[in-house]
Structures are given as structure tokens and as C-alpha cells.
């Protein structure tokens, strides 16, 4: 992948590529990915109810948000959408069995243990989501994909991520077109019917995606693709990257030690 070349053209004309960051311009995207990964592991591996540790990590993230000057509204929008999906999957934790009943209604009960674990999971989720969003907001997706391949992430996985990024807009566009066509034939007749039709649309979109995937694969093969893209140049590490890397590890350890002291 043309990693070195891509930096010689710095006219990010697409809205997708319009992410600017002052604090991050000096640190290589690969370092940012690794540092984010270290912090995510530190946050997730923290035992339940270590609130002080998360408070310290949270403060660090707030400082990072300030330095990076990301668009906070954009961050909030993404965070809000992702939170809905994530919350649904963790809601079950709140009603788990445990000691000390906090609230009960019929067979539904919230225990103190459940509350503690739920609160801990929410802390972990909140912090990691903000971190991951900060990463994707400060690195343009193409550069992020290049960096992943420099970090030797399996090429197939990167190819899948790349295709998802490239074709997401196209899928949304196709869905909107189908929905428009359905509305033109009075889709809005009833809520139940509407749900049924949208379900059918998603099904047909799935089949179309399969067809399109097949055609894309043919076009890749016709241009000599044999299962893997050539690997980009190897990693170059500057003193700034070393400093960022060292500081992240130190910060992760400080957060963990603070709780016990």
C-alpha cells in the first residue's frame, strides 16, 4: 500500500478525510493505534468497582479530548448511536443474581452485586467508546487501514474493513432508494406493514450485497488480485512515538496502582 506516497498528497478534499488534530499530527497513526489498544486493555482489565482507576483514566481522556480538538458534537453523535446498541446488550447484567436485593418487582430484581457489575461495565464501555471514537475521528479511515497493515493485522481483515468503509455509503444509498420507491407506492399505510416491508428490503439488500460482493471480487481478480495486497513499508518509530508509547504504559500502571494505594 502506498503509505509513503499518501503523505505527499495532503489535500484532504473529501468530507471523510476532514479530520484534523493538533496533538496527533506529531505522533504516527500506528503509535496512536497501539496506545489506544493499551488503554482499552487497561480499562477493560480493571476489576469491578475500581472507580478511582476509571476516574484517573477518564481525566486522562478528557485532557486528550482537549488536546486533540475534535468536534465534540460529532463525538457525542457517534457515542450516542453506539451507546444504544451497546446498552441493549449489557442490560441483562443489571438483572443478574447476586447478594443484597436493591429493588424487586415480581420476578425482576436488581441486586447490589448486579448494580456494581453493571456500573463497572458501563464505565468500561463509556471510556473505551470515547477512546475508539477519538481514534477514528483523528485518523482518516484510509490512513487507519494502512496503519493496521503496517501493524501486521491480517490482510483479509483489513480488506474486509476497507470494503465496509467503501461500501457503507453505497448500501445506505441503495436502502434509501428502495425505501423511496416503497414510499412512492404508499408504504406508510400502517406501522406493522411498514416494518414488514423494511424487513423485506433488508433481506433483498443482503442478497444484492452478495451479488455485488461477487462482482467486486471478479473485478479484483481481473486486476491480478491473488488473495493479499502487497505489504506496505515497515514501521518507522520516532522519539515522539517512543515517548507517547512509554507515557501510555506509565499512565495505565498509575491508574491501576492508585486504587491499591
Amino acid at each position, binding site marked *: *500500500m*502506498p503509505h*509513503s*506516497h*499518501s503523505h505527499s*498528497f*495532503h*489535500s*484532504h*478534499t*473529501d*468530507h*471523510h*478525510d476532514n479530520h484534523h488534530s493538533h496533538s496527533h499530527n506529531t505522533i504516527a497513526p500506528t503509535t496512536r493505534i497501539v496506545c489506544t489498544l493499551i488503554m482499552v486493555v487497561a480499562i477493560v482489565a480493571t476489576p469491578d468497582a475500581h472507580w478511582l482507576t476509571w476516574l484517573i483514566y477518564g481525566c486522562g481522556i478528557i485532557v486528550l479530548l482537549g488536546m486533540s480538538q475534535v468536534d465534540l458534537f460529532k463525538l457525542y453523535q457517534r457515542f450516542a448511536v453506539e451507546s444504544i446498541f451497546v446498552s441493549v446488550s449489557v442490560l441483562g447484567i443489571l438483572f443478574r443474581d447476586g447478594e443484597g436485593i436493591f429493588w424487586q418487582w415480581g420476578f425482576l430484581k436488581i441486586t447490589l452485586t448486579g448494580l456494581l457489575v453493571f456500573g463497572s461495565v458501563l464505565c468500561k464501555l463509556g471510556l473505551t467508546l470515547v477512546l475508539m471514537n477519538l481514534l477514528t475521528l483523528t485518523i482518516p*479511515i*484510509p490512513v487507519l*487501514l494502512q496503519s493496521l497493515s503496517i501493524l501486521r493485522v491480517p490482510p483479509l481483515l483489513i480488506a474486509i474493513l*476497507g*470494503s465496509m*468503509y*467503501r*461500501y457503507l*455509503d*453505497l448500501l445506505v444509498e441503495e436502502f434509501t432508494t428502495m425505501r423511496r420507491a416503497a414510499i412512492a407506492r404508499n408504504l406508510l399505510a400502517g406501522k406493522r406493514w411498514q416494518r414488514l416491508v423494511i424487513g423485506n428490503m433488508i433481506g433483498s439488500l443482503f442478497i444484492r450485497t452478495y451479488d*455485488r460482493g461477487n*462482482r*467486486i471480487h*471478479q*473485478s*479484483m*481478480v*481481473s*486486476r*491480478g*488480485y*491473488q488473495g493479499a*495486497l*502487497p505489504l506496505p*513499508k515497515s514501521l518507522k518509530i520516532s522519539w515522539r512515538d517512543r515517548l507517547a508509547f512509554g507515557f501510555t504504559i506509565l499512565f495505565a500502571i498509575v491508574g491501576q496502582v492508585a486504587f491499591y494505594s
Partner: protein
Amino acid sequence: MHHNSISIQNLNYNYPDKTQALKGISLDIHAGDRVALIGANGSGKSTLLQHLNGILLPQTGTITIGHYPMESKYLREIRNFVGLVFQNPDDQLFMSTVWEDISFGPLNQGIPQENLIDRCEQAINAVGLDLKDYAHRNPGNLSGGEKKRVAIAGILAMQPQIIAFDEPSAQLDPRSRRQFIHLLQSLPITQLIATHDLDLALELCSRTIILSQGEIVYDGQTEDVMYDSGFLHQHSLEPPLSYSRPYCDRKIDKDLD
């Protein structure tokens, strides 16, 4: 450049449901030719094109591309020899930036980094775009005409000896179509253009091959067949619009006299 770019002898192809898509196709395309491959929907044009690039291999019959017989072991050479431009550029532009997409083919060919920039710059300039303006753009945000150009640049960057186009003028507005015709006229390369845009065929290609239900029903001068509206109707085609206008009719009558 090889004298006989493409040679096909008695090619047959059946779909998995046993529908016969190609029946006894035999043709030769010489270096430097620009040939139109015309046929109604479902006539087998796309299936034939996919055979030229080795996406489909012959079930019976033989295909020779340059001096390579169409066999699995020569696919790499054949795909460097024949570039295939797909009908829908969205199927072809799969990388996240224009630069990555244009360099995709050359990278697969193993072109070293130092030659890559020149190779891609030449390709994108050939389609009338500027690399500096487009390199970092997301192909999804380009207009239909731009997408088509980038798709062609991606093929040109591989420096093939033949380019096969599948319905190249579909989804193009009149101005983009006109620019596209000029672009094809300017490319000094063997071209096979599968289309049902007969006006485009008439303007670009001196030779036309007509496919109907998987068979070649005509192979000859483009102008000769365009006059024969009965023959074209018989194979679910219509004469070019430029021939069906009154002043053209008068011209045809005069010519026939």
C-alpha cells in the same frame, strides 16, 4: 504488441442451470483494432468478456490471448495482457481512495514503489484527471463520469495490451458520454467494446460483432449492419438514433440510389 491479440475457437459455455450462454464462438481480434460487441440483454456479451480475462475459463473450445492459451497457469500473464472495465464503476472502485484504487493493479503486478507514481500519474492523466486533485478522494463521492474515468485509469495503470469494456456508456449523461467517446478515440490500444449503444459503436468502431442468444450472427463492417433495420430487429436491436432521424433517412435513400 502481439499481432493477434485475441483468438477464440469454437467457445461454448453453459451456466450451472444448463442454459447455454455461448454457442460455438469463433473470432480473431488483431492488435490495434477497436471492435464493437453488440447484443441485446442476455445475449452473452458479458459472459464472453469474462472469458477474455480468465474470470470464466472455457468449458469447450480454446482461447488464446497474445501467445498465452487460456489456462489457469497463465492467468497472471493474461490478466496483465487484458484489462476489463466493468459496467458499474462501483463494482470496480473498491479501495478507500482513488490513489489506492489506481495503484491496486500495478501493486499486484509487483511494480516497485519508485515506478508506481509515474505509472499511476500517466494513467490518470490519460483519462483527463489530475492525480493531485483526486489521489485522496473517496471514489464513492465522485460523479458517475469521474468514477468511470478512475475505473479506466485503474486498468490503464496496468498497461494492458487490450482493454475490454462492458457497457461503457451506461449511466453516463450526454456530456460524460461524449467525453468518454473522445477518451476511447485517444487511447492507442486494442479495444473491445460490449454495448447496446449502437450510436457509440458506429462512432468508434469500424468492425462490429453481433451476438444473439449466445451465437455470433454478424461479424463485419459496422456501417453495413447499421442500415439493416430488419436484421437488427430480428436480434432485438434497433438502428442507431442517428440513422432513424428523417435527414439521415434521406441520406440513406440517397446513398442507396
